[in-house]
Each structure stands twice: as structure tokens, then as C-alpha cells.
């Protein structure tokens, strides 16, 4: 029997057992679709987080006071104790370092803001004008020109804060009070929403020197540095570490984190998550495989006399085995195609339902799903097909 005839003959058989075909096809298709949709979901979550990080700014280096024991210990530094202050002078010393494009010292705290008799609590950030550039913040009105100081008492209000305090929209130039200090509204942030836990809509930004006075501290919360390029991040980290060590009497008491390191960690975690989720989805394909095997075993016993007849007119073991294998191959291929279509539609549905989530199914997952469907289909039909091939023709033909 030629390969082409085997394909045609098995295809015709598949088509003539319609209910069986639809059942197997559906089982396969749902398995494939599950893999596609769930990987799209995982990938979407990964990209969502990556985008959030990218929105922080690019080529970021973050300097945090305190030394964590574990190498690259991002978490440890966040909760660790602070042996020595990171000062504004430390920040100023970065100016001349190679690889540093700009930097912004940062203090953050809570404060009361009041204007025209209205009062509320806000998150107060103290920094320089560089922060706006580094963090890709945008001003809707006005400007912020603070440097290391001394600076005039000016503040930038988040869009929501400005609207709450000055509903008429005339916030710019007005006087406000933060704690017991007076400030002039010099700018208003554009609406940006939340990114990485910081909502500029509800933030108030003031010059660093005023923030330190307000919070009564000499110690910086952290210093944000923008390196000149992605490849400059690592060398610049080294230079900064060396410079700060020198200033701190030879002690390495700061933690310096490159944005790429954080990104890589999150990327790894989320990729693993996607893989795990798609692995679970692949189990549904294995279940489909068991179904296929059972359906094919039933098919073989239903068609026993037909198999006996084929042997009587000269079909070889190989011919019969191939015919049954090809039947499931057709169904697996059709199931994979339908499953991919369903999976992409499902992902589209996800993106429509959650527009922030870039739930695009990755190509590798689609290919893996198709391959798994084909391998499962073939594997599941090996047993039934070889059972058919080994049937005793005399017994097969004597069955009515």
C-alpha cells in the first residue's frame, strides 16, 4: 500500500465514523486550547510585570543604605537594619562618576497636607528634578527645578490631590501647607495611574532639602541612579560601590541593585510559573490520550471482521497498523488545529476582558501543544493499532 493511499483510506474511515471523530477531536482540541490559553495568561502576567518595571525608568541603579549579607539581596536590604546613613553629600559625590547619567536622592514619608481649610494625609517624596526624568514622570502643568539645595519651598501635586484641594483647577501657584511648613504649588503631575506601588496621582513631591527638614532626618531613603546605558549598569555599580566605600571609611555599608538584576529575577520566577501552568494544562492532553486509546480499542474490536478481511485479501501487519495509526493522526492534527484556533480566540477574549494584560500565547507554547497532541495521539493509538495488526484473521472472520 502506498503512503498516499494509506492517508486517503484512513481519512475516509475517520470521516465515516463521525461521532467518534468529533469526540476525539474535541478532547484533543480542548487540551491544546488549554495549553495555549494558560501559557498566554502566564506570559501576559510576565509581560505585565516587566512593563511595570520598565515604567520605573530604564538602566536604573538603586542605592539603599545598609548592607545585606546575601549577594544581590534585594529583599534583605529592604527589611535589614541601617548601620550608617546615606547622606545628601553621598549623593552629591556621584555627580562626577563615570557611567552615571543622572541621579536623584530620595526621602519618602507621610505628611498632612492642607489648603484652603481642606486637610488630608499624603505620601510625600523629597527629591530633585532628576527624579522626574529618571522615573519617567510627567508634569501636566508647571515645573520642578529642585537640585541638592538649598531650594525654594515649592511642591508638585499629584493630579488627584490637586483636584481634591483645588476643585476649580486653579492649583498652580497656590499656597499649601505640609506639616508645619508652607509651600507654593509649582507643578501638577499628569494622570499616570499606579506603577510598581507608587501612584503619582496621589503623591506630593518637594525638594530634597525641605523633605529632610520636614522629616527631621539627614539620612536618605535611597538614591536612584540612571546609568548611561544598559551595559553601563554593572561597571557603574562597581564605581559607585568603590566611591561610597571610600567615603564611608572603607566600609561597604550600602546595597546597590541594578534594575536588570531585579528584572532577571522576576523574569525567571514568572517564566517558571508559566511553565508550571502549561504543564498542568498538558495533563489534560494526556487525559485526552487515554480517551483516544479507549475509543480506538473499541474501534478495533468493532471492526474485527473488517481487519480479518483485510488480512485475507493480503494486507500486511504494517498496513493494518499504519491504517489505525493514521486514523488517530488525522484526528490529532485536526484536534490540534481546532485547539490552536480555540486557544487564540480564548487569548483574545482574555485580552478583551483584561486590557492591561498582554495575554498573547507564545509561539513555543503553541508548537509544544501541537507536538504534544500529535505525540499523545500516536502514542495512544500504538496499542490499539498493534492489537489490530496482530489479530488472528481466522478468528476475526468467524465473528459475526
Amino acid at each position, binding site marked *: 500500500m502506498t503512503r498516499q493511499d494509506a492517508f486517503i483510506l484512513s481519512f475516509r474511515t475517520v470521516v465515516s465514523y463521525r461521532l467518534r471523530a468529533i469526540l476525539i477531536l474535541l478532547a484533543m482540541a480542548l487540551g491544546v486550547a488549554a495549553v495555549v490559553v494558560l501559557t498566554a495568561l502566564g506570559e501576559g502576567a510576565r509581560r505585565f510585570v516587566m512593563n511595570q518595571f520598565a515604567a520605573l525608568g530604564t538602566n536604573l541603579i538603586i542605592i539603599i543604605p545598609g548592607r545585606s549579607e546575601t549577594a544581590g539581596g534585594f529583599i534583605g536590604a529592604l527589611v535589614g537594619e541601617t548601620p550608617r546613613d546615606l547622606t545628601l553629600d553621598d549623593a552629591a559625590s556621584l555627580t562626577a562618576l563615570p557611567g552615571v547619567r543622572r541621579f536623584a536622592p530620595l526621602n519618602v514619608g507621610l505628611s498632612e497636607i492642607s489648603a484652603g481649610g481642606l486637610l488630608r494625609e499624603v505620601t510625600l517624596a523629597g527629591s530633585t528634578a532628576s527624579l522626574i526624568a529618571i522615573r519617567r514622570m510627567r508634569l501636566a502643568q508647571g515645573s520642578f527645578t529642585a537640585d541638592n539645595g538649598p531650594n525654594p519651598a515649592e511642591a508638585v501635586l499629584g493630579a488627584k490631590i490637586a483636584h481634591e484641594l483645588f476643585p476649580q483647577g486653579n492649583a498652580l501657584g497656590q499656597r499649601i501647607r505640609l506639616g508645619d511648613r508652607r509651600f507654593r504649588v509649582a507643578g501638577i503631575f499628569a494622570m499616570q495611574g499606579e506603577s510598581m506601588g507608587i501612584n503619582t496621582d496621589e503623591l506630593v513631591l518637594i525638594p530634597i532639602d525641605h523633605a529632610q527638614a520636614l522629616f527631621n532626618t539627614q539620612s536618605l531613603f535611597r538614591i536612584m541612579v540612571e546609568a548611561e546605558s544598559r551595559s553601563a549598569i554593572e561597571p557603574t555599580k562597581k564605581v559607585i560601590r568603590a566611591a561610597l566605600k571610600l567615603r564611608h571609611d572603607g566600609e561597604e555599608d550600602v546595597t546597590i541593585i541594578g534594575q536588570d538584576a531585579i528584572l532577571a529575577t522576576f523574569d525567571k520566577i514568572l517564566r517558571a510559573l508559566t511553565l508550571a501552568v502549561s504543564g498542568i494544562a498538558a495533563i489534560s492532553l494526556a487525559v485526552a490520550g487515554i480517551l483516544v486509546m479507549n475509543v480506538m480499542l473499541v474501534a478495533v474490536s468493532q471492526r474485527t471482521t473488517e481487519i480479518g478481511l483485510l*488480512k*485475507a485479501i493480503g*494486507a500486511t501487519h504494517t498496513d493494518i497498523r499504519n491504517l489505525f495509526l493514521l486514523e488517530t493522526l488525522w484526528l490529532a492534527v485536526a484536534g490540534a488545529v481546532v485547539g490552536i484556533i480555540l486557544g487564540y480566540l480564548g487569548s483574545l477574549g482574555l485580552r478583551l476582558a483584561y486590557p492591561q494584560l498582554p495575554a498573547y500565547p507564545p509561539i513555543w507554547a503553541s508548537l509544544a501543544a501541537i507536538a504534544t497532541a500529535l505525540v499523545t495521539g500516536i502514542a495512544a493509538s500504538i496499542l490499539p493499532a498493534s492489537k489490530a495488526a496482530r489479530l488472528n484473521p481466522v478468528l476475526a472472520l468467524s465473528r459475526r
Partner: protein
Amino acid sequence: MIALTAISRIFTMGDQEVRALNNINLTIAPGAYVSVMGPSGSGKSTLLNLIGLLDQPTSGTYLLENIDVTSLSETDQARVRRERIGFIFQSFHLIPRLTAAENIELPLILDGIPSAERKKRVQAILQQTNLLERADHRPSELSGGQRQRVAIARATILNPAVLLADEPTGNLDHKTGAEVIALLENLHHQGTTIITVTHDREIGARAHRKIQMRDGEVVSDD
């Protein structure tokens, strides 16, 4: 030429042994017209299945056209079945989802013959067996006689040397049975060896050589 020497076929069912064929010696010349008769369970079908390579003897040798076919590989035996032997059964054994023409085409497909050539040969044999109008009908839409004619067309489309018929008229009425026998005798005239197992004395008597079996042995042969 079919030469069976000391052929036995023993079935074991649990601890019971059934000697379906007991030391059979038989030579059938090319082009012979043979009938095999005997009571139920005498081993007629077993003999036919052995000659048709659907079954293997427990002992003895079987030469078909001077080849020891029982020692051939499975693939080679399948080829011999396909090209040298034709089978006809009491219950036709047509594939229900295929049309008459497609059922007849099957051996050609198994033999790897190209599609265009297949169509030509099927067309020719449909004409010979008077089945042209029924070519696109499925077996369920055919009468018993038509089904058996389709089965004969399928069995002979590759011009086998030997045609084995196991009670070919068993499911047919007298008239259509006679038509089927006429078709077989026509093939005999063209040189095919015909071996028919039958319970019908009249049909058995038409053969040129009549073999009687009982309890797995040949009891008369003339």
C-alpha cells in the same frame, strides 16, 4: 499447484485437543475445479484457511507453486495471499462504509497499484460481473447475490491462481446461488484453480474433483 504433505492442525482449548486436520496428503493441480464436502466440524474451513495462508499447520509441509509458503515471513505470506490467492466467504465480508467499486478496489490499493490503473481495472471487472449500475452502491443497498458478486470481483481482481470459496452460496437462495456458481465456473474456464467448500450436493457434484472429509481426514477423493 498445491501440495499438502502430512498436514495436521491441532487446536488446543484449555486441556482439550481438537484435531481439526489429521495427517492430510493432498495435491491439487493448477486449473482444477475441486469441491470439499463433509459434515459440520469435519475440518473443511480449516483446510481452506490453511491453503489460503490465513492459518498455519501444526505439522506437515505445504508447497504452493513449489514454494514452502508456511516458512515465508508474514509480509511475504501477505503478498502471496494478495497476488496468488482469492477468498470468498459465506457472509461476503464487504466493508459496509465503502461502495461496491471501492470494495473491489481494495486489493489493488494494498498492492500499491496507481489510482488511474485501479479505476480502469475496477471498471473492467464491474462490467464482467454485471455490476456497473451498482458500482456506487454500498453493500447495504445490494442484494445477497450482488454482494457475493462484488466479493468475487474483489477476490479475483488481481487474477489469483487459486480461488477459495467457503460456502459461497450458504446465504443465497437457489437461483442467485446458481448465478454465483456460474461465475466461479466461468473463472475456472479462464484457468483459475477453484476450491469450493459446500453443503449443497448439487453444487458439490458439479466440480470435477470431489473431496469428502470427516473428522479432519479425507475419506474420499474422486
